[in-house]
């Protein structure tokens, strides 16, 4: 098993990839996933989700989870 990592929008561009599967060895929380996969400094205002639920950066991650990183959302309208 492994952890699926997704990057969106400006975070995707900064990291230079949108999707990756990483080995879960040594991964305890969201910050570990970032360090292992992104390999660039964490941007200000970074948001994260585990299995499509918003998550804190210190929240635990388990084998098989999908972890996503993205900037603040800008949907809707003016």
């Amino acid at each position: 098993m492994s952890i699926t990592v997704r990057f969106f929008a400006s975070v995707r561009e900064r990291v230079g990839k949108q999707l990756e599967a990483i080995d879960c060895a040594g991964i305890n929380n969201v910050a570990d996933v970032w360090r292992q996969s992104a390999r660039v400094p964490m941007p200000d205002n970074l948001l994260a989700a585990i299995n499509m639920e918003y998550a804190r950066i210190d929240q635990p991650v388990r084998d098989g989870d999908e972890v996503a990183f993205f900037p603040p959302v800008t949907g809707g309208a003016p």
Partner: protein
Amino acid sequence: MTVRLLAEAFDPWREIVRYQEEQPALAGKFGATTVFVGTLRDFNQGHAVQAMTLEHYAPMTGEHLERVAREASERWPIADLLVIHRYGELRPNDPIVCVAVWAEHREAAFAACRYLIDELKTRAPFWKQEQTRQGRRWVAPEPKVK
């Protein structure tokens, strides 16, 4: 209660008419309909906008729109609601989002409509990238008012 994510341009007024006609149980039962339509302007923060790309995170985006819709229908006495949100490539004057609420009275209809647009803006994972003459740029979120 319906939430839709669309990749193609849509006419919000036609969608509202069609949706209303498809709900025969609504006929005669609602006194108030409120609608919000968000439309892409051709300028933003001093720049002429040529196009916009709306990126989203399927299916997380749809799930969060559904959740906001459920919350609105639990908080206020409303008869029905429709949310349509675009993603992909948009041109100026294209509708971005449409929220329609049907209720017996206008108090609930206004409150639910406002809640839906405010919450989906801050919770549904969408990201706007504008195309201007100066190039592409990611749109920064609005400062929080509340």
